[in-house]
């Protein structure tokens, strides 16, 4: 039952996304223009840690932009209708999975564009598979936290402003871990060295999903 509802919700989300193609293209354009502005102001970054930090800041802001609308589109009539039909827990898990797919897509695009436009000298040793793992794990926790917090923020009038002040302090632990993890990947570390980052990031991700699963019904039931 739960899985069936989840599948339906995901399908529903994708159909909406396909209907509103302008949304995803606007986010992609946002990412490309941000990176382009950065490339005009930096051209080349000598230190890899700054290159890495800039990359994560761009990811953080573009994901905030992309996910802030996840509960905005639901006007209240539709919310009541959905609530009568489905389990709210299926709804939040569906939203988290959908946002996860969306953000991994966006993050891969920005990684590609960022690599093209902004060069750094110390990137030859980079362990690409590990860097991608860091990016995927990091953006997972960013997107799931943002999904839950945007559900909270959607109840207020000033959605995106409230979303950032509520979410950024909570995001800092996983963001710091991801930045350190990807720094290690840039320096050419191996997976053995990064095991604690992988374990901690996965645990944080799991914790966020469990908390959202437990707490979301209270937000939904109004």
């Amino acid at each position, binding site marked *: 039952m739960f899985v069936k509802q989840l599948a339906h919700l995901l399908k529903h989300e994708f159909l909406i996304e396909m209907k509103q193609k302008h949304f995803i293209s606007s986010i992609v354009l946002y990412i490309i223009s941000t990176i382009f502005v950065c490339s005009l102001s930096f051209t080349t970054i000598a230190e890899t840690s700054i290159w890495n930090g800039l990359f994560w800041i761009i990811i953080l802001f573009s994901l905030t932009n992309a996910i802030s609308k996840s509960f905005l589109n639901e006007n209240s009539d539709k919310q009541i209708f959905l609530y009568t039909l489905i389990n709210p827990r299926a709804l939040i898990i569906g939203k988290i999975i959908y946002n996860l797919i969306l953000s991994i897509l966006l993050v891969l695009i920005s990684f590609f564009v960022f690599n093209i436009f902004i060069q750094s000298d110390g990137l030859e040793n980079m362990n690409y598979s590990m860097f991608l793992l860091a990016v995927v794990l990091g953006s997972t926790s960013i997107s799931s*936290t943002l999904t*839950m*917090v945007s559900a*909270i923020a959607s*109840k*207020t*009038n*000033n959605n995106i402003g*409230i979303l950032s*002040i*509520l979410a*950024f*302090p*909570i995001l*800092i*632990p996983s963001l*710091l*871990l991801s930045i*350190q993890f990807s720094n290690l990947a840039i320096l050419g570390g191996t997976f053995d060295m990064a095991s*604690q*980052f992988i374990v*901690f990031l996965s645990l*944080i991700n799991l*914790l*966020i999903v469990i*908390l*959202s699963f437990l*707490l979301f019904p*209270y*937000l939904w039931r*109004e």
Partner: protein
Amino acid sequence: MNSIKKHWWKALAVILLIYTIAFSFLVPLSPSVKSASPNSLNLGENKVILTGYNTGFSSDEKISATLEYDHKTLVCGTEIKQINDNQVSVNFTIPDSLPSKILHLRLSTNKFSSFSPELIKVFAVGINRDTTNLCEADALNSSAHSLDIPNRLQLNETIRNLMFHVPMWFTMMVILSISFFYSIKYLNTFDIKYDIIAREAVNIGLLFAVLGLITGSIWAKFTWSEHTDLFTTKGWWVNDVKLNGAAITTLIYIAYRILRNSLQEEHQKAKISAVYNIFAFVMMIVFIMILPRITDSLHPGNGGNPAFGKYDLDSTLRMVFYPAVMGWILLGIWMLSLKKRIYNLENKLEND
């Protein structure tokens, strides 16, 4: 009689805090040697001037100074002369059997005995024999251990801040845990009075967080930073994992207050902020518990440990630190109960 049974802990809080404040401001620092010049010695005879703090040497006193390593007395000072209340000059003769090492200085008079680890460096080319005590210091009968606060290098008088800065964070964590607990209770019962407790606990927790940041900032300025000039922005903040944790906690709970203020309807406000409170508290615990384990910190007991090192407190500090923590926590809970009573009275006035 009944009121004593009910309110004894408030009296306890007052007594503990008076004890804490009196102890931490009135008890002197133990006498200790702060610097030696020159602090690097060569083979042969070296004349060293030792500068102490609170030592109060008097001219008729008998003083002994020895250099130690690994519980063995290696060099005994000779021709010890008092220069003034806080300075003595000592001759150390470094034998050629001594290898290059950083030594600990022990200075005793008949009033006190002080131990300054890693104060003096020796440059010598010695064969590293398994040296037993090379010299026998005259056993001085330092009078009974008097009550004083330990005098540490670098910390000096600022060690008194331990009784104020550290308990602020303990109290904040306790009060925020109360808030977390009542938020859960609210979501189970939807009784608005639990939400009020959660809200007021956050306010009081924020107060303690700000006090902790201020005391910590002052402490950091005068111990970790070389910029001791008050009128500069340098040195008030260092990039340290615990400071980041403190700052993030403060940001999270300020955000909680903003969230509350941007919602209108009472029950919606209570429900949504309770959800955020639970979510944020758990993430904050993750931040405070996990990150210090994988990054290093300037704070004591770190690099693998989010709490204290057990060797950081001596018995005198323990005598006042634990009461201080208890006193501040009780004070926080007292403030919370007052806030609750104010709310109840206001509610009563509105209903009448």
